[in-house]
Structures are given as C-alpha cells and as structure tokens.
C-alpha cells in the first residue's frame, strides 16, 4: 500500500519532474482520451513512440515500469483473454459454447494489451514524478475555473491534502489496533463467515473513533492558528506554467492530431 500511494514517488530533477502538476495531470487525461481513438497499428505506434520519449525524459529506469506492471500481469492476461474469447465477428478459428476465437478477436486482444500498457505507462510516469501533494495542488489548479460557479475548490483541495496527510497516521494506528485485538485472541482473515464479519467491528470502531478524535483536535489546532475560511487564504505552493509545459502540450497535441488523421485515412 505504501508503495502504491506514497513510496511510488521518486525524487528527481528531470524534464518531467519539473513540469507543473496541473499540466501533467491534464496531459495524462488527454492521453487516455486519445487512446480511445487509436484503431490501428500506425496510431498505436505513434502513441507508443510518444510514451517512450516521455519515459526517457522522466529519467526513471525502465525496470521501475516493469515492476509496476508485474502485479497487474494476471489481470491484463485475464482481460485480454476475455476480449479474445468474447469478441464477435471476423473469421472464426475455434468455437466452444459462448467462447470463440477469430482473427478479429486476436487483433483486438493485441490492441487491448497495448492500451493497457500505454495507460499504465502514462499513469506510472505521473505518480513516479509527482508527489501526491503536488497532484492535489494540480487538481486544485485545474478546477479553479469552477470557483466562478461557487464550487468550493479550495475547501476541496484542503480536505484532500489533510486526507493525504493523515493516511499514514491512520494506517499506523490500524496496525496497532490490529495487533492489540490479535493479542486479545482475534483471528483476522480466517475462520467462518460469521467470524470474519464479526472481526470487522473491533477493527473499524477504534479506527473510526481515532479518526474522529484527530478531526476534533485538528479543528481546534487549525482555529488556534487563525483558520476560519478555506476559500480566503493565500497559497504557499504555486506551480507556475512553464515553457516545458507548453512544449509538452504542443507535442501531445501533434501526436493526437496524427492519431485522428491516421484514423480518417
């Protein structure tokens, strides 16, 4: 878990590290949308070339990406198999009950595999080069226009940053509660269904009680430090839009245009 959410960030000073989180966030989103429009080898090739350039620019060794994919490999294989077995149309090679394999399903299976890889690669670049806090700040910047319709963007961002800050604390406490109840004779993760359902209560009640205590104490401490309104505060961390962001966007737009062009021709 730690590895998934927090340990994933690798400090560095690469081109990608230096980009603003808001453009990394929006570019990742844009990239996933463009993938929807890829429909042949050439368009997938263009996207793959782009992601390879991005990976190289991030300065992160390729083994990190392979490690990131490894735990997902069975899931990918499973989904690809589903795709192959359940696809309709094309020349059918083999059929058994609801399952069939055709030339079209094999090609589609291959594409799905590439889609998986592309999405995992871009999201891995994002999380390896951007701290969770920076991502939260990026979200805040991206959502800023919504302030015009009185959507509480800053409150949301503050809430998110406090939530992220308390995840390790609560995880720690959960570890202690788990041990305390274990030493009182609870077996977690085994036994009858009834037993498993019951075992959730001695774990969750203390976890929630602790969280409520944190919320109360933190509220007091925040107010003592002059907090009254999350929508009227200045900001310590500001990520400015830089030349790197503009160049990246231009490159991504060009590849996106290329994919659409290939699709038409």
């Amino acid at each position, binding site marked *: 878990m730690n590895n998934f959410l927090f340990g994933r960030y690798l400090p560095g000073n690469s081109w990608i590290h230096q980009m603003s989180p808001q453009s990394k966030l929006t570019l990742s989103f844009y990239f996933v949308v463009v993938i929807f429009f890829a429909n042949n080898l050439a368009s997938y090739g263009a996207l793959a070339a782009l992601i390879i350039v991005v990976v190289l620019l991030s300065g992160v060794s390729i083994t990190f990406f392979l490690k990131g994919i490894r735990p997902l490999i069975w899931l990918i294989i499973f989904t690809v198999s589903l795709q192959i077995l359940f696809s309709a149309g094309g020349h059918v090679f083999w059929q058994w009950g609801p399952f069939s394999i055709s030339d079209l399903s094999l090609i589609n299976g291959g594409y799905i595999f590439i889609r998986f890889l592309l999405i995992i690669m871009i999201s891995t670049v994002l999380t390896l080069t951007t701290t969770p806090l920076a991502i939260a700040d990026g979200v805040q910047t991206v959502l800023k226009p919504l302030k015009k319709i009185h959507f509480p963007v800053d409150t949301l961002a503050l809430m998110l*940053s406090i939530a992220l*800050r308390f995840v390790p604390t609560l995880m720690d406490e959960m570890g202690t509660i788990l041990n305390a109840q274990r030493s009182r004779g609870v077996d977690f993760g085994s036994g009858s269904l009834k037993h498993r359902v019951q075992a959730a209560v001695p774990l969750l009640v203390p976890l929630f009680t602790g969280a409520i205590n944190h919320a109360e104490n933190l509220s007091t401490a925040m107010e003592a*430090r002059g907090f009254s309104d999350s929508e009227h*505060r*200045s900001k*310590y961390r500001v990520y400015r839009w830089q030349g790197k962001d503009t160049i990246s966007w231009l490159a991504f737009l060009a590849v996106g245009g290329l994919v659409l062009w290939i699709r038409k021709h």
Partner: protein
Amino acid sequence: MKDIIQIQNISFNYSNQPRLFDGLSLDVHQGEWLALIGQNGSGKSTLARLIDGLNVLTKGQILVAGMPVNDANVLKIRNKIGMVFQNPEDQFVGATVEDDVAFGLENRQVDRQKMHDIVKQSLKSVNMWEFRDRIPANLSGGQKQRVAIAGIIALSPEIIILDEATSMLDPRGRQDILNLVRQIKEKNHLTVISITHDIDEAAGADRVVIINKGQKIDEDTPAQIFKHPKRLEQIGLDVPYTSQLIAALSKRSVHAAKEYLNSEELITWIKQLVSTT
C-alpha cells in the same frame, strides 16, 4: 507590571456537564512565564481554550491585551497567541514540514514571497530547515513539536501557551522543547503560559498557579508554592524532587530549615552539613 491577560470572574461548563469554573479570576503579567498546574480534568486546558476563544464563556469576561475575547476580536486575539497542544500528531495540518509552518500564514493571506522568507527563518530558528521536505510520518514527536513552534514563531505572537506540550515526549525531547521555548521567549520578549503536571517544568516558571476542580487554589512563586508539599500530594500532583529528598532526610533526623529548596540551595546546604571543617 502590565497584565496581558485578565480573567475576570468567569463561569463555564461544557454542555450537559457540571459547572467547571464558577467565578474564577486570574491575571497573567506581560513577559512572565506562568505555570498552570493541576490534575487531568482540573480545567487547566479548558482555561487555555477560553483565552484563545476556542470555547465560549457562560459568564464573566477575559481580556487579552485589553481586548475582550468575543466574536469580533477573536481573530485579532489569535494573532497574539500561539498555542502548542499535547498531541504532536493532531496539530500538524500541512502535508510537509514547510507546508505546515506556512498554514497560519496562508490563513492570514500573507503574500507568497514574504511567506517563503518567514517559513525559512522560522524553521531555521528551531533547527528544522533541513527537514522541510519531510512528511509528518517520518518525524519524531519532538521534531513535530519543533515544527509546531516554528509555525508559531512565523506568526510572531506575544503569548505562547504550551498545553501539556511536552507530556507525550520522552524526557530528552521534553527538556529539548522547554529549552527551545525558553530561548524564544527571551529573544522575542514573549509571555509564556505552560499548562503542565510536570513539577520540574513548573519549577522553572516565574509564577505558579494551582488549579483544582476548576478552582484556583493558590498563585505564587515556585519556591512559595512548593513549601507545601503535602498540599501538592493531596491534589494528586508530584512533589519536587528536592522536597522528596528533604522529607527523606528529615525521617533520618537530618532536618532542613525549609520544606522546599531549589537544587542549588539544597546542594549548598548538604555541602555545609557534611563538610568536616
């Protein structure tokens, strides 16, 4: 001496609970280190919260720097008071050390460039600048309290309230934080109120107030307060180490003139006793 805080005949109770304070009065002098001692549940932390406008009085009034604590003044008053709480974990708002120190400045809408300078200075003054990128999970309790103090320094208050700020630290961390606050107090000419049941912390104060069951039992210099070790024991407080030793000696027919001496006085006295010349 000017009184920076005047507590005038206040009454207070939490909803659905018996009355905690009934007509309590107390003054805090500008520039002093005041120790507020008493058992858990005696009301000493509540008093701190009332001073900072975190709870609302039932009766009476509290003046901070001449301003009554009320809705209109509360933000101005909180600008003057920095509080350090008991649990280091529950006052760390920012995701990193730097962000946490900036939190109070952001609330006051301080300009960004200025904010960066203040955060740097404040963290340097508590020797935590090298830790600015750390997340709270990777800091010790003592380090978190240092960050809390940096957050207070950043706002340049006139009063610091330590609400059992050292009670969750190990003895080394405790000493370390007290030394730091003492140093900042001298440098910035602050008033310090320390709420504690650590008698050694109280011994270092200019003045001690004993609170028991919402009542002020006594207020005086530590030397005068510690003259009555039995009373301290009766209300569930520790007796200063030197008084314990004096009592133990008295049982061995070695009688001191007083029931309380500070360490230096006690050492001098013992030295006189055992010197053969």
